[in-house]
Structures are given as structure tokens and as C-alpha cells.
């Protein structure tokens, strides 16, 4: 796996980018934290946040020209949050004199500051903190410069004087009434390790580096209005602070330019969707400064800007409390571990790979692709936890074994000749279809593995419909497309599966596939681009619905689009047309079509992490206020398992008792196998007149009794009916079992592939009553 690429993808994520206000603030006040403290009524903490960013916060907070407000996202909706007024409120309600730390010894060097305005004082303050002996030259009889022009307006004299006292408390040598001109500046430069020029103007024009504030390559630095003439107070403070960083680096002889990105104001890459933001008008002040209550209300208007577009609808990222940037870092760590625990495995196997994240992202970051690639890498390195996908892969193996898989051409005219008699041929469109047969398979019906498992009774009917309506020969092909292998990251198995489908397609002379499962559609689209396919729903839409004794209870349905069809508008449209033509009203869900959500089955999450699957199911059910309409067998089974009335589109098309169909419980894992096997047997017998050759219901000389409670255990523990049978058969034949004389029960075990199954049972008459079942993967070495 390309970890550099992974990290780059993570770094593109804007989840952790600062809000526009903070980025645009020359001193980067943490506005979100500031607003949060005010909302919590903690003005002291809010003020501390200001003080942490700038000295003289009590002055600057009152006169700051607040470039942040012009950038506030709320400005586009109603009006910007009054950040400046809230700073004033924080000063009014939260100022406490700070306890200054003892000054450090001033051993690092000597710096002169020329100009006692906000820029010069800030630079002096910062350099003093860093351990420099600072001398400040001010031409006036007092410090403060332009600050005094606010006296009597925003600032009162006492506050200015109190704040300026800070300078006196430090070890700074302040030289008032000392005007510096170009000539004595030269002398000062000789006497000091570096000099900062913070005068509003200067007689000589200088080349000032906008990042480092260095004047050419000298020990002279200049900031404030000399560098930028916008007369911005906050910019002056920022330039003093940043020049102090440069001076420190200059004296220490380290790079002046390294890692200085985003030091001053910058444009954040953060973006936000604001369509759903409610209008809340700015809170008016009843006095000169917000009262506490007013301030709390105004701060509550802050949107706390952060991009969570992909996280918002994703049950997975919410469960693991992770954003794409952090996710990428965790995968990176997981991939690099050689010795130790791979803590991210659980998370990586809990993503449904539904792809909604990419649809939500401003930058098209697809965590689906990242996680898919990660799973493939884990498999390659033999680091994929076996238990996560083992059952699903065995289920796929079953579906591609002789027990389910098969393909047949449409019964030939020769084979069907017994049906071509009057009146059958006059009213049976199916028989007419057989009669039209040419022997060239134009279409191949591929119902997938889960639809025959969930709706076994519909497959034959659909096949007959297709023969009747397609006007060309329709064959059938039963099997699994490989979706479980793809989700599990098993590329080799996927390649084998795809290869087999291709060979069958070629053997059938390249027919168009008719697909009925959304996952098959996405697998064919991605892995089998050479094969043309059409969805069964498009066929129904185009050729008309099967005629039968359908009963419709017209009501409103929410359509849950299958996540595997996210980009297949043809399917979305066909489904809607069918539903409408059946007389139902459709109420679209917020997340639909290309923005649909996963039911919780995708990515094999249902097997790897049931709790996570449950989050997806519940989330979707919560979103839906009407009965759900789905067109994926697994979507239906999962929603119904949580008690949501859900119709598969086939329930509406073929259904006779819809009340029942909408709540029909999903078949158990064992029944799913059985149903598939039955579909094959039925088709072979009823359509092709072939008797089953396989033996999958062995004759038993006992009756197996399994209670509902044990069936639930089997479902939770992925134990099949046939596993139990094998254990009991082995125990009875080999006598390999334990006996408990206290209750006369038996306990038997059998290792099947990589799992040991245990069954506890009682024998009574010809019956075997199963009491408990469990399994483990650890191998016990006997003997």
C-alpha cells in the first residue's frame, strides 16, 4: 500500500482546518474556543484565551479592527457574529490581572526596539520573555503611541496606564523622550545584536521582508505601519510578535524562513455547506458592552465552523469518532506495525464501503477507496483477521459450488415441444417465448446469491417472465458475483471469480446479463466492463410488469436506494417508475440516489461488526417516517430484523399479502443455503426437466429438534444446521463425544476446516434435541 499517498489523502481533508475568522486573525485567536467559553458563561477563560495570544489584551481587545468579522461565515447567512463586541464583553466580565512569572535571566543577547507603540511594545514584550536584554526607545514622554488616540472613546486613561505598567514590570529598559533618526539608528545597530523598528514612519525607504520583517540582510527588522500601512492595530501587534520570532532566530543563527507558513493572516481552505443553517439575528447591545446574558446569546450564534460533511451521515465514522485525516493516520500506523497489536483492524473492517463520504466531500476524498485498498493490503500481508470475513467467504464458496451454481441455455424448442399445444400456446407467453427460441442466448438472467436466498419463490417466476418478454433467448446463471471477496479485500479470489464469470459468458456466446442485485451491478460495472448488463428493474420498466393477482395497498413509501447503485441513475429511475405505476406515493429520503446511505450490510460489516451494522440500520430507520421500499435483498432483511416494515420491490410486484411481506423475517443463515439449493433444484426440474443429481439432504435416521433459542445462538455464532448435523453424525458414528450422567446429555465436537464446532444434545427415542452450540477457531492438539 502506498502510505505516502494515503497520508497525502489524509492531509487534503479539511476537517481540522481553522475557521475563516481564526485564520484571518493576524494573531490567530481561537475564536471557536473563545465563543464556547462565553456560551458556557465563563468570561474569565474567554479572556485568558485572548491574553494567551497577545500582550495588552485589555487594550487591543477594545480597539482591534477585527478583520475576523468580515470573514465570518454567518455574514453570508444573516450577519457576522459580533466577535469584537464579545471580546469587549470578555474584558468587561472576565478580566483579572494576570500573575506575571518571574523574569528569566537576560543572557541571550541585546535587542533595541525603536518606537513604543503597539508593534514595538509587543516585540519588546516577546523578546523579554525569550530571555533577551531589551532596550526600548520612545520619542514621546510616554509609551503607547497611537493607543492614546482612543482615550476617552474606547479606552479610559486608567486602563491604558495599568496595561502599560506591564512594560515597567519587565526587565525592559525604557528610554522615553529619545528620538531616533537614521543617523543614530546606525549607532544603535552597531551596539545591539538586533534592532526592531516599530515607528509609524521612517525617513528612509526600506526593503522589508513580509514574512521575516528583516530589512534586507541586516540585523535590522521593521514592522507595523512601516511594513503595512493599513493602520491596523491587530496587524501591528502581530508584526511585533512575528518580528520577535525572527530576531530570536537571527541571533541564534537558525533559519529565519523555515516553518513560518500560516504565521500571519491566511485564507483557510476550510469550506462549509450553509444551506441548512438557521437564520439567527445578531443580538443587540442594550448598553455600551454586551451584558453577560446578551454575550452568551450572541456567542451561541457562532457556527463553530468545522467540516463534518462526511461524518454527519456516516454511522461508521461516528462510532469510531474519527475524521478522514485521523483515519488516514491510524491506517498508516496500522500498516507500519511489525511487532505489536494492529489496533485499527476493527475500525477498518467496520466501514460499509458505501462511498457516501466521497459524495459529501468538497474535495472528493473517498474513504471507501482508501479502506478498500487497506483491506487488500492487509490480506496481502496476511494481517487480515480471519474471523472477520470467514463466514461470508464460506457462504460465497457455497454459492459458487455445485450446490447452487449452474448455468443453462433457454430450454430448446426440441426440449419444449410437449408444451406447444393448443390452447396453452395461445395464452402462455412463456410457452410462446420458448416457441420463439433460436438457440442463441441473447440474455443471461443472473439473480445473484442473496436474492434467491431471500426470495427463493420468485426466481422461477422471474425467469419465465423474461422468457416470455425478451423476444430473444434467455439463459440462467446461478452463482455469486464475488462481492464478498471484493469487500474482504481478497483480490485473488475476486480475480478467480471474475475469470469464471467471463468464461461462462464466453461459453454462452456473450449474452447481456440481466442483474437483479445492486451489488452484482456494481461488481459487473467495476470488474467486468466488457459484459453488457441491464437491471431487472429496467426490464420490468420497459416491458411492463408481470401480470398476476397483485393486491396493492396504496400508501406512501420511502425509497431506500441501495448504496451499490449510487451512480446508476437508470436503476433509480426504473424503481421509481415501477413504484409509481403500482399506485404508491413516494416520499424521498434526505439521503437518496447518489447520496444514499448503506443499510449496514455493505463491506461485510454485518459479519465483521454486528454492533456497527446495527448503527447503520437504526440510523436509516430513524430517517424514514414511512414504510421503506428497497431493491436489495439484504437491505430488506436488515431493516426488517430491526422491526421496520420494509418491502422489497418484488414484494410489491408479485406480492399478494403485503402486510405479511413487509415484516417477513429474514431467513436464517442455514435457510439461505437451503433456499439457494432449492432454487437450483426447482429450476432444473421445472424448467429443464432435469432430476437433481446432487445429494444435499442425506437420509437421517433421527429427527433433529432445534429450539428457537438455539437457532438464535446459531445465527449469532455463524453456525449452520449442516455443521450441527456433521458434528452429531460424527459423534454417533465414532462415539467421539462426552457424556454427562447428571442430565444424560452429550457433548460432541468436530473440526470443519478452520473451526471446531461443539454441540450439546440429548437423545430421546428417535429424536435428537440440541441444547447448546458454540465454536472456536483455536486448534486443540489431541493425542
Amino acid at each position, binding site marked *: 500500500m502506498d502510505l505516502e499517498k494515503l497520508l497525502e489523502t489524509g492531509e487534503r481533508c479539511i476537517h481540522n482546518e481553522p475557521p475563516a475568522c481564526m485564520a484571518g486573525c493576524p494573531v490567530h485567536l481561537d475564536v471557536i474556543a473563545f465563543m464556547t467559553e462565553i456560551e458556557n458563561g465563563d468570561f474569565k477563560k474567554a479572556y485568558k484565551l485572548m491574553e494567551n495570544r497577545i500582550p495588552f489584551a485589555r487594550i487591543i481587545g477594545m480597539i482591534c479592527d477585527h478583520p475576523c468579522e468580515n470573514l465570518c461565515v454567518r455574514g453570508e447567512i444573516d450577519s457576522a457574529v459580533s466577535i469584537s463586541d464579545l471580546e469587549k464583553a470578555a474584558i468587561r466580565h472576565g478580566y483579572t490581572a494576570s500573575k506575571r512569572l518571574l523574569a528569566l535571566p537576560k543572557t541571550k543577547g541585546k535587542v533595541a526596539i525603536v518606537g513604543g507603540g503597539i508593534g514595538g511594545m509587543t516585540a519588546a514584550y516577546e523578546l523579554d520573555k525569550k530571555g533577551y536584554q531589551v532596550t526600548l526607545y520612545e520619542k514621546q514622554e510616554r509609551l503607547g503611541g497611537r493607543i492614546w488616540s482612543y482615550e476617552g472613546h474606547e479606552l479610559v486613561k486608567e486602563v491604558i496606564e495599568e496595561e502599560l505598567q506591564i512594560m515597567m514590570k519587565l526587565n525592559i529598559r525604557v528610554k522615553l523622550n529619545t528620538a531616533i533618526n537614521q543617523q543614530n539608528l546606525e549607532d544603535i545597530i552597531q551596539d545591539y545584536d538586533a534592532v526592531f523598528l516599530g515607528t509609524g514612519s521612517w525617513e528612509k525607504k526600506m526593503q522589508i521582508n513580509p514574512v521575516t520583517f528583516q530589512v534586507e540582510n541586516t540585523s535590522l527588522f521593521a514592522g507595523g505601519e512601516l511594513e503595512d500601512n493599513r493602520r491596523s492595530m491587530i496587524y501591528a501587534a502581530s508584526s511585533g510578535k512575528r518580528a520577535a520570532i525572527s530576531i530570536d532566530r537571527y541571533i541564534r543563527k537558525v533559519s529565519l524562513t523555515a516553518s513560518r507558513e500560516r504565521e500571519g493572516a491566511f485564507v483557510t481552505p476550510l469550506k462549509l455547506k450553509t444551506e441548512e443553517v438557521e437564520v439567527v439575528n445578531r443580538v443587540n447591545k442594550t448598553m455600551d458592552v454586551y451584558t453577560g446574558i446578551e454575550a452568551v446569546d450572541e456567542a451561541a450564534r457562532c457556527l463553530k465552523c468545522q467540516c463534518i460533511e462526511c461524518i454527519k451521515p456516516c454511522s461508521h465514522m461516528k462510532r469510531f469518532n474519527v475524521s478522514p485525516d485521523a483515519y488516514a493516520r491510524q491506517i498508516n500506523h496500522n500498516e507500519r506495525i511489525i511487532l*505489536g*497489536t*494492529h*489496533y485499527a*483492524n*476493527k475500525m477498518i473492517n467496520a466501514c460499509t464501503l458505501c462511498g457516501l463520504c466521497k459524495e459529501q466531500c468538497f474535495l472528493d476524498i473517498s474513504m471507501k477507496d482508501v479502506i478498500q485498498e487497506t483491506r487488500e493490503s492487509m490480506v496481502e500481508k496476511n494481517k487480515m*483477521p*480471519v*474471523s*472477520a470475513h470467514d463466514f461470508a467467504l464460506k457462504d460465497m464458496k457455497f454459492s459458487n459450488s455445485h450446490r447452487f451454481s449452474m448455468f443453462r441455455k433457454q430450454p430448446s424448442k426440441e426440449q419444449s415441444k410437449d408444451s406447444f399445444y393448443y390452447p396453452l400456446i395461445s395464452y402462455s407467453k412463456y410457452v410462446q417465448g420458448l416457441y420463439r427460441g433460436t438457440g442463441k442466448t441473447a440474455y443471461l438472467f443472473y439473480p445473484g446469491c442473496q436474492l434467491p436466498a431471500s426470495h427463493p419463490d420468485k426466481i422461477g417466476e422471474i425467469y419465465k417472465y423474461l422468457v416470455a418478454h425478451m423476444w430473444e433467448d434467455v439463459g440462467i446463471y446461478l452463482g455469486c458475483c464475488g462481492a464478498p471477496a471484493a469487500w474482504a479485500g481478497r483480490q485473488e479470489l475476486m480475480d478467480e471469480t471474475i475469470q469464471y464469470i467471463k468464461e461462462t459468458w464466453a461459453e454462452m456466446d456473450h449474452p447481456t446479463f440481466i442483474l437483479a442485485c445492486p451489488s452484482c451491478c456494481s461488481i459487473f460495472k467495476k470488474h467486468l466492463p466488457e459484459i453488457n448488463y441491464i437491471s431487472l428493474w429496467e426490464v420490468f420498466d420497459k416491458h411492463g410488469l408481470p401480470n398476476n393477482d397483485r393486491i396493492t395497498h396504496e400508501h406512501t413509501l420511502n425509497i431506500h436506494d441501495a448504496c451499490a447503485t449510487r451512480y446508476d441513475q437508470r436503476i433509480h429511475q426504473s424503481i421509481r417508475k415501477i413504484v409509481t405505476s403500482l399506485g404508491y406515493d413516494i416520499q424521498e429520503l434526505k439521503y437518496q440516489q447518489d447520496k444514499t446511505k448503506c443499510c449496514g450490510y455493505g463491506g461485510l460489516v454485518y459479519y465483521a461488526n454486528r454492533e456497527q451494522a446495527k448503527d447503520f440500520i437504526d440510523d436509516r430507520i430513524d430517517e424514514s417516517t414511512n414504510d421503506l421500499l428497497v431493491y436489495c435483498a439484504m437491505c430488506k432483511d436488515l431493516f426488517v430484523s430491526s422491526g421496520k416494515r420494509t418491502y422489497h420491490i418484488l414484494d410489491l410486484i408479485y406480492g399478494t399479502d403485503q402486510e405479511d411481506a413487509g415484516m417477513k423475517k429474514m431467513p436464517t443463515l442455514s435457510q439461505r443455503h437451503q433456499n439457494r439449493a432449492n432454487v437450483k433444484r426447482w429450476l432444473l426440474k421445472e424448467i429443464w426437466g432435469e432430476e437433481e443429481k446432487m445429494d444435499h439432504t442425506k437420509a437421517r435416521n433421527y429427527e433433529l429438534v432445534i429450539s428457537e433459542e438455539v437457532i438464535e445462538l446459531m445465527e449469532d455464532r455463524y453456525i449452520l444446521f449442516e455443521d450441527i448435523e456433521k458434528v452429531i453424525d460424527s459423534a454417533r458414528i*465414532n*462415539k*467421539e*463425544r*462426552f*457424556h*454427562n*450422567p*447428571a442430565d444424560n446429555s*452429550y*457433548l460432541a*465436537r468436530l473440526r470443519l476446516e478452520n473451526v*471446531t464446532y*461443539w454441540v*450439546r444434545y440429548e437423545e430421546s427415542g428417535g429424536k435428537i434435541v440440541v441444547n*447448546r452450540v*458454540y*465454536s*472456536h*477457531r*483455536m*486448534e*486443540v*492438539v*489431541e*493425542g
Partner: protein
Amino acid sequence: MNEQNNQKEDGEQKEHDHQWMCDKCHEKLEMSKVRVRYLDGNFEVDLLRCPTCRMVFIGEELALGKMLEIEKGLEDK
């Protein structure tokens, strides 16, 4: 408190497990050192076993408790 309860339950379970006999050999099970392995893990542990045919007994609590925990731990290594 919880730990005590767990220990008590474990004790009861173990006592319960001792009731089982090998159905083939009609022998009482005995605690013995048995080798178990999974992925890169290979340990010797004390388990109940038939002294004659050496068939090893794994109870449900053990399979779904400690054993599962170790399996998961090894899978994430």
C-alpha cells in the same frame, strides 16, 4: 466484588465440566497439559481430557471467553 463473583462462577463451571465423561472410554476426565495453536500462537494449557483416548473437553465458557479473547488478540498481531 465482581472478580469474586467471576471466580465463583468459574469455579462452578469447572465443577460442572468435571461431571462429563468420555463416552467411548467411560473414563472420568482429568486435567492435563494440552497443546493449543492458532495462527502464530502455540501454547500449552491445562484442559480436561480423557486419560485413555486423550479427547479434549472445551466448555462453552472457555470457548467464548478466554479462547475467543486469545484468538482475537492473535488475529490482530
